[in-house]
């Protein structure tokens, strides 16, 4: 009997033992498997949201943000507008020490180049998802193309025609060895032109949700490409088409374009939505600008990295009556015992290096770091001034260009007719062109446009030289990262002279 019991126990143990692990198929609970994603229209929408999400990535810094490595400041380096109190960032940009190993100049490249690949892949994937409504499908594809075009515009501006993955086959096979070709300027422009024209055809004039690309936004990107590549005629025509959409107008109050209380205004063509949370989509401008002793008269929280300044020399170039000067702040409140005191930062040497570029106003819901003001990327004033520039290049001095500038100046001087310019003020188209460059400084001060403008006008290097800087011809391009050159094994070329 006892023998039976022990054998019985053994048998149970042995039977229990084998095959617990079954077929070893993995169980995944909280990730999306490629087996069943993307398939539905809802999947496709989430995928496109992901592409929009790449403007900011997984954190609020870098890419289309405010910190020294991000889009806005890369559009300012080497220009007369830019001063940073952080010597580590200010010294190399002031001295044109654009070192290919210096993250300050190459970080944006490293982050945005693979994102272009992602967009290329998603465009191909969207074509595979079956939609009942092909119009919706085409719209989503067009949105992704518009995102990609804007990234290409900035990569091109900073680093020259970028070597990026535009071939869907290569984008969808990430493990193969693929070196993106170096396109000539013509090839590159042809590619983005085709892409944007397709996008423009599929995009709605008014977005279903604010923050998505519209036809006008895609047109504005193409306009800026045309201007960069001096395609004046195309630019002139396209700017007229944008105006003909009748979607945009200049806002009466210049200072409220960036206001938290005035989002979605008619002047904005494209903005990146921001919320006052520790979310990638947030606005860090004020934290980067405010001086450490700054106190909000409204009692709002303040985080002050005390970074960016508009040099006093540029500040002084503004007409005192110019409303635009008010966005560059000299006087602010500090704590004085238990009271607040308004001080002149310049006179008290609190602001040694320049005024505070504070176009984005205070968001009282913010914790000081993360503000909700949408980041304005494209605005209508730019279309008007670019049109003025294109017409001048195309036709020489002309009244329409002068009128376009005066639209801008009327707003800046609250309609004061004496501040208008006259055709007769200009001896030549070149003189008008130079004037436009100056007007653009006042209009787009510290919006990340200055470097592009100076380069387009051929003044980036010469202006720096006039300030005593050792700027050389090759500095119109930032270097691409050394790591990409090493990886490229001869297929990715460093920009000349770096």
């Amino acid at each position, binding site marked *: 009997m*006892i023998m039976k019991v*022990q*054998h019985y*126990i*053994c048998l149970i*143990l042995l039977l229990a033992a084998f095959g*617990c*692990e*079954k077929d*070893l198929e*993995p*169980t995944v*609970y*909280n*990730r*999306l*498997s*490629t087996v069943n994603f993307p398939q539905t229209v809802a999947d496709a929408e*989430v*995928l496109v*949201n*992901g592409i*929009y*999400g790449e403007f900011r990535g*997984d954190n609020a810094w870098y890419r289309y943000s405010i910190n020294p490595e991000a889009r806005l400041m890369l559009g300012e380096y080497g220009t007369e507008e830019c001063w940073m*109190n952080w*010597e580590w960032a200010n*010294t*190399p940009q002031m001295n044109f020490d654009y*070192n290919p*190993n210096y993250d300050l100049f190459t970080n944006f490249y490293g982050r945005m180049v*693979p994102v272009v*690949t*992602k967009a290329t892949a998603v465009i191909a994937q969207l074509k595979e998802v079956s939609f009942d409504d092909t119009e919706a499908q085409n719209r989503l594809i067009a949105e992704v193309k518009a995102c990609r075009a804007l990234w290409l515009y900035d990569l091109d501006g900073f680093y020259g025609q970028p070597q990026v*993955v535009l071939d869907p086959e290569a*984008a969808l096979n*990430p*493990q193969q060895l693929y070196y993106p070709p170096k396109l000539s300027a013509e090839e590159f422009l042809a590619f983005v032109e085709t892409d944007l024209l397709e996008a423009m055809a599929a995009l709605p004039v008014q977005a279903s*949700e*604010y923050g*998505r690309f519209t036809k006008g936004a895609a047109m504005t990107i193409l306009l800026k490409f045309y201007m960069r590549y001096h395609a004046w005629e195309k630019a002139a025509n396209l700017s007229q088409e944008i105006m003909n959409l009748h979607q945009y107008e200049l806002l009466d109050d210049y200072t409220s374009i960036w206001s938290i209380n005035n*989002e979605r205004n008619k002047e904005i063509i494209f903005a*990146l939505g921001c*919320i006052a949370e520790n979310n*990638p*989509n947030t606005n860090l401008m004020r934290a980067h600008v405010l001086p*450490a002793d700054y106190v909000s008269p409204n009692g709002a929280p303040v*985080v*002050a990295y*005390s970074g960016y300044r508009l040099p006093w020399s540029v500040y002084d170039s503004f007409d005192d009556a110019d409303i635009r000067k008010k966005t560059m702040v000299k006087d602010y409140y500090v704590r004085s*015992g238990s009271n607040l005191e308004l001080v002149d930062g310049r006179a008290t040497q609190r602001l040694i290096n320049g005024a505070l570029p504070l176009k984005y106003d205070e968001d009282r819901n913010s*914790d*000081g770091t993360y503000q909700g003001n*949408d980041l304005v990327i494209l605005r209508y004033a730019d279309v008007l001034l670019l049109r003025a520039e294109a017409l001048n290049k195309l036709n020489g001095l002309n009244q329409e260009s002068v009128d376009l500038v005066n639209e801008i100046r009327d707003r800046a001087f609250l309609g004061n007719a004496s501040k208008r310019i006259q055709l007769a003020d200009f001896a030549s188209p070149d003189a008008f062109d130079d004037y436009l460059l100056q007007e653009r400084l006042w209009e787009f001060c510290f919006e990340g446009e200055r470097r592009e403008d100076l380069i387009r006008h051929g003044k980036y290097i010469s202006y720096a030289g006039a300030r005593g800087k050792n700027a050389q011809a090759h500095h119109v391009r930032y270097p691409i990262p*050394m790591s*990409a*050159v*090493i*990886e490229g094994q*001869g297929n990715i070329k460093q920009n000349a002279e770096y």
Partner: protein
Amino acid sequence: MNSGKKMRRAFAYPYQLFRVMKIALFLTFISITGLYANGFSQQVTLHGKKQQLSVLVKNIEQQTDYHFIYDKRDIEGIDIDQVALEGAPLNQALEQLLTPAGLGYKIVDHYILLKPLADRGGAMNRLQERKIEGRVQNSAGQPLRGAVVTIKGTGRSTATGADGQFTLQMPGNKGQLQVRFMGYEPQEITLSETTVYRITLKEQVDALDEVVVVGYGTQKKADLTGAVVSLKKEDLTQHADASIGQMLSGKAPGVTIRNTNALPGGGVEILVRGAASTGAGNDPLVVIDGFPVSGGALEPSNGTNDYYQGDRSPLNSLNPDDIASIDIMKDASATAIYGARAANGVIIITTKRGKEGVQLNYSTQYSNQQMRKPFQMLDATQFMHETNKVIRERWLRQYSIAPYGNVDSTTVTSWIPRYSEAQIAEAGAGTDWWDLATQTGHIQSHNLSLSGGNETVKTFTSLGYFGQNGVLKKSKFERFTGKFNLDYKVTDFLNVGLSALATQINNSNVQIGEGQWQGSGMIMSALMFDPTLPVKDEEGNYSIANYYANMPNPVSFTEVDDHTKQQRFLSNVFVEVVPLKHLKIRTSVGIDHQQSERKAYYPKTFLFGQLRNGQATINASGKDDYLFDLTATYNLTHHQHQATFMAGYAYQQFNDDYRGITASDFFTDAFSYDNLGAGSDRPLVGSSRGRSVLGSYFARINYSFNSRYLLTLNARYDGSDKFGANNKWGFFPSAALGWRLSEESFLKEVRQLSNLKLRVSYGQTGNSNIGSNAFAFYDVNRTAIFNNEIALGATPSQLANPDLKWETTTEANIGLDFGFFNNRLTGTAEFYDKTIADLLGYRDLRSWMLLPSVAANLGKTKSTGVEIGITAVNIDNKNKNLHWSTTVNYTSYNDRWKERSPDVVLSPWQSASDPIRAVFNYITDGIVQPGEVVPHMPTAVPGNIKIKDINGFDENLNYTGGQDGKIDQADLVYIGRTDPAFTLGISNTLKYKRLDLTVYGYGMFNRWVYNQSLLKYVGWSDKLWEHGTNLRVEAIDRWSSLNTDGKYPSDAPNTTIGADAWVWEKASFFRIKNITLGYDLSNRFLKRTFKTFRVYLDVQNPVVFTSWSGMDPETDGGSIAPYPNQVSYSLGLNLSL
């Protein structure tokens, strides 16, 4: 060295008595009135011609349950001409063999005592005889039957009876009583007028007889063929540390342990034989009472990336006092039984189990910890003075005034000092933030354990408490443990048992992370905060730096409520059946349930909370691992052949989950984290879940021939759901040979040699630690804002690799175990060579592709190493009761690349066989002086550090072989490794009578560490101006136009690549870890009550020998503000009843 003489004497010790199978034990032969054993039915079969009697005796031992006890000299050289016994009864066989050789025998219990027939001892005078009597027992108080009691020098002996009692007639009043029992340390007692004695024998531990826990079984150390370090409880005395991790430093050759931070319960990095895996982790597998546990400590986050609590040891959930032994498997032969999880070594932790009898132990300890200021910061006067100097220097640079240019300083706006002379004059020392942030630490621990049982049921129960208030204010660690182990022999063929552990840890977290700016931790803030500020401003708010409002006030950290509660229930039940005489089938089922919950509240009085108007978070992580295993073990003994076969199956399932909520904007701080609904900001929520499965089949054969030649074969077949369809299963075999040279006749005569064993092993193990990375996924990890609402976006997050498979380590090991001079000098030396192939990791895709990398098997690394452990008994004077022993452990390893994946693009300065953790650095060349032009550093200004231009690249990135006039990566030079060249542990134990003294230290040598603290607190002197943050006093000696022979670079930024090259430093150190002085009072005046009553004093970390200029060469693993080791003073008591 005078020990040579002592050793010769030791070796010449007259009692070279010798027992074959079991313990080396001295035993004089005695006349016994004891019982004849009833074992005469045992039968013996012996055949052969001309055999040594000693061999025949062994043969009989193997065939029967009996063991012989004899004086080696009595049977040496005796040959038996002819034997022919076939199933002869034992007594008949003995008579036939022994009588012709002039030997007699007696059987007591299971022992056969041999003695010459002729009585060699003389007759004794019978003078003044008196009777003495007594009882012999073990430390658990159980009677020892068959213990031999002798009156020294008289030849009078007896053996104790079943109740441990003995009586002897004693001549005269004075004498020495000797008591001996197999497996126990012999004891001598000076006889007095007392006639009744109670004698407690201590269990003897013989190195070769120790049982070592190997996977799924145990083995005698003498039979081991693998590289195993076995540490007993005595080796692991814990003092001011919460877990045993820290106490392993320098204790086990081949094991490199580094404290990663020293906060209460702080983390340790444990490496067995280096770290040659590059992508799949190098953590060894930890097996607790047969349960292979997974992963590190469960530490949910606190809802902010900014504040980090520091890593903690996953071993914290174990009470060190419950541990009986730790066995560390190092080579493939020892580890292969754990197959796919064993490549980084296996640490088997065995807890104490019940013994027969009753024993109660209690230990307690109180410690006091002092935090030494890691370095001196500028006081308020110095701070103001240095700030002004920086401002002046900046001004000189900004306007290009000499030495930075030739602008006339009178033509520019003059500089304004931040602090006036009057302010500086009255500043004094200012606020000592370090002092305000730290406190005296305290540790209190209590452990109570009860071991009890009889032949059928044995239990071990313990309760433990460990409480520590750290030296940083608010840092606290509190642990409650309960342990219950049960062994129940249900019938002859059925045993069941249980190992159960329940732990709760309550941590109070302080923020000590590596964050900067607003994320600065408490240590960093206490070092860097402006010394001119008061703790609170006039309105009672914590002061904030004027020029850098983003660093929390050091004292305000104490306002944060941040607690982690960790609970663990680890339980493993086994059933063992013996269906046949030599077959054992054992199955166990276990669960490891862990829950960890973090609750944090950042109040408005703390900067971070102020910005969010209060933020509360509750995050919880859980883990449930299930284990089922089944093994069958068969023992076979035939003549000189002895073999054990084991085969088994194991299934393990790993589950984890996470959930969390965060709310902010609270109208009051009063709720802390207990009312998240009161936060008016939208709560953030999240959750996740994961699972993986491992199924394994394994087998082992241990074979020994004549106790001299040993063979071990292992194989394991593992299946995991982590891998792609093509590679779910992996096979891991190993083989090992052992040769006990000291048992060979040609070495037996070498009396100096007590033990010599050569071991050779070769085998494979695996590493599967790469998560579910073989598959492609999209993650919902992007957000866009449309209409001011968050729109969730998905992006590809992982690429598939269906060919992904195990990382495989192939390892060869040669080991030598030795013992000289009667094992007064013992040791082990190991040499290994392992190659890790199919390295798990992430193959870098070209940076322009969709994702930066894909999980892949890449290339090979190679690790070689030497490990030596030596223990010497320098003094062992039994007469004077003096004992001194020294243990030295040496470990070195060299991890290198052997083969790179073909698609890896090496940077020009790299080579295919670099050390894995190679350091390439630029060579510094002093500081730029006024007027000096450094052509290869065009933007350099006076005060910048100079980098040597050594080499250049051509346009194809080939070296040009000479200076190219600029600094780029061509100028990088290999300088060394971040791994230590070797680690050393030295332990000295001195015992004099009841006094014991242990001095123990360890060190790491020749390792490079990036000295972040030098960079941050000396190098970044511009931060004095920019942020108003403080610096070390060393920063005074920085270069400036007023101090052109300064040691450190100036505050001027240096944008040349490699400008931080000067902070790489060697972090070699030797730390005296513990000095312990103990005294056992039990025999003095407490012997009737206590078996032991030991009090001790300990000082931990009193001295560190190092040239490192950071905080702590051990915890500064490249971090900015780690929690450094402290000096602790402890007073403790151990007692047992």
